[in-house]
């Protein structure tokens, strides 16, 4: 199964090192491969180094593409992570 969803970075610090590490942890819980498309960039959501190259500040919209048996659950979990600002207060 392949699902695509656009998620918005709403936390103040953007997808900084710690937030990106959280994203990697969530993505790793699922079997599905998750790819993030941003402009011409495509990075593996399970790669912290890849995420760093996105330099995604607050307000950046990222397109997530999950491919695999648990794609639906993976997208839901990622969506929640973004909405909860990676567990940050602002």
């Amino acid at each position, binding site marked *: 199964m392949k699902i695509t969803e656009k998620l918005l970075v709403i936390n*103040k*610090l*953007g997808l*900084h*090192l*710690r937030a990106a*590490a959280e994203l*990697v*942890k969530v993505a790793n819980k699922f079997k599905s491969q998750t790819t993030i498309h941003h402009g011409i960039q495509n990075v*593996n959501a*399970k*790669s*912290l*180094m*890849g995420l*760093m*190259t996105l*330099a995604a*500040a607050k307000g950046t919209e990222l397109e997530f593409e999950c491919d695999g048996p648990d794609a639906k659950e993976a997208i839901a979990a990622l969506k929640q992570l973004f909405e909860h600002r990676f567990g*940050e*207060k*602002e």
Partner: protein
Amino acid sequence: MSEKIFHGVPASGGIAIGPAYLYHSQGLTVSRRKLKPEEVEPELKRFQEALAKTRAQIKGLEEKAKEKLGEEHASIFSAHQVLLEDPLFTEDVARIVSSDHINAEFVLHEALEKFKTVMASLNDEYFRERGGDIRDVGNRVLRNLMGKGDKEELKKLDKEIILVANDLIPSDMVNLPTETIKAFCTDVGGKTSHVAIVSRSMGLPAVVGMQKATMDIHDGDLLIVDGNKGLVLVNPRPHIIEQYRHLKEEYVAFQKSLEAFKNLPAVTPDGRRVTLAANIETPLELDEMARHGAEGIGLYRTEFLYMNREENPSEEEQFQAYKELAVKTGDHPAIIRTLDLGGDKFLSHLNDSEEKNPFLGLRAIRLCLKRPDIFKIQLRAILRAAAYGPIKIMFPMISSLSEVLESKVLLQECAEELKHEGQVFRSGIEVGVMIEIPSAAIIADILIQEVDFFSIGTNDLIQYSMAADRGNESVAYLYDPLNPAILRLIHMTVEAAHKAGKWVGMCGEVAGDPQFIPLLLGIGLDELSASVSVISEIKKIIRMMPYEKAKEIALAATRVKTSDEVFEIIRDNVPAELKAILF
């Protein structure tokens, strides 16, 4: 061998001449090797072993950093651990080694280089700087693969070198062989970066923020590092080297002449004694202090405990930090300033709403009084640590009497709680306030009734009095310590304290500026607190400046109308031998 000059940030004074030694590139010349089919399995195993070794090293560094540099410096290594679990390390390298039959170091090196290029091209400074973290982890794996060990070769250096690096992060500084290093140059960093503080404490010159030094300096290049001006000369011509040899000798002689003052008191030729103390920003600077002959700490900033982290420091963590301070300063007093965040040092997890005007907003004591739950943790930790040495407490950004009273009530509450709990603490700690808002200077006579001392914070006092942000170039000209309005506020503060039989100090940047010392002496300040590196020089000036003459200067300065006239009064009235040094 072409001659080049680089400009950077002068992070630690002094001059050094010697060969360049590139830190990260050293020993990491990676060559490509085609593997025979039977070599692939052992190669994969070798790579896995290097990863395992790296994991263990990072874990070890994390613990070492926790112990030597504190919890907040250690958190970077937990991010390094997540980086190490990146698919690049755990999957990609092994896959390419298996499919292309190429040695693991080459595959990894290629991949890291690609990342380096991408990261360096990013517009956002934060993300660009993260390239350093990735390189740190990647190079560590490479070193382990190549059997280079944990940067061991640096420890074995047998000749003196100038260390050139993109950045020196805490893990580097923990292990440096200080005997053979003569100076530091780094691409990144500012005056308060880690390498700057550590090099100052080691007394070695450092130029940081050189942008791309590591790309243009090669191993073995002859370098001149001028840590006073922030210059690095690469392969200079012989007559330039000769010139710098002279400068270096002069500088060393000057420093030597200052050293003579280290153990002498800060007393004028006619017997006026002032206390010369140090401003401390991080605990790393505590060791520098004694070396420069400071008599205690006039300003111990506590913000470092709260910065770069998600949660507030616990009482225990703060207690340990303040106790270390008490123990290290011995019999000398140490003034701890309570949390001064907000404004420029924005603390994301404490301040929940964005302010249009943070410098006029909820910062320092205002924030603390609004959040007594957080404030009391700090007050308790300070009271407990004060049992180990003469610690005093100082509240920042006081603008009215009620703030002083409220703060004292909270302090009293904490003392009673501690007593009730049977904890060891000191009752009757000396309490002071910063005078850095004009309203506080104007009611200094009222405030002094409630406190034991004042300390004038010039940076904010000037900014708030002149309503000028000195970081704003178009109005920075208004930031003028000699403006008669500022001098009047200082006079009022000193007079109010002395009338009440109490002492008054100054801990702003003005107190560390040699040219202002004669005037400040004359105004009657009892204590001057400045950054560690200028203390010896200020002591030298005090010991050359007769107090009677200084008082005349201060008096004359009250009778003129402009700061230019004040400047001329100082310049034309200091003793000739002092004039030669200052002007």
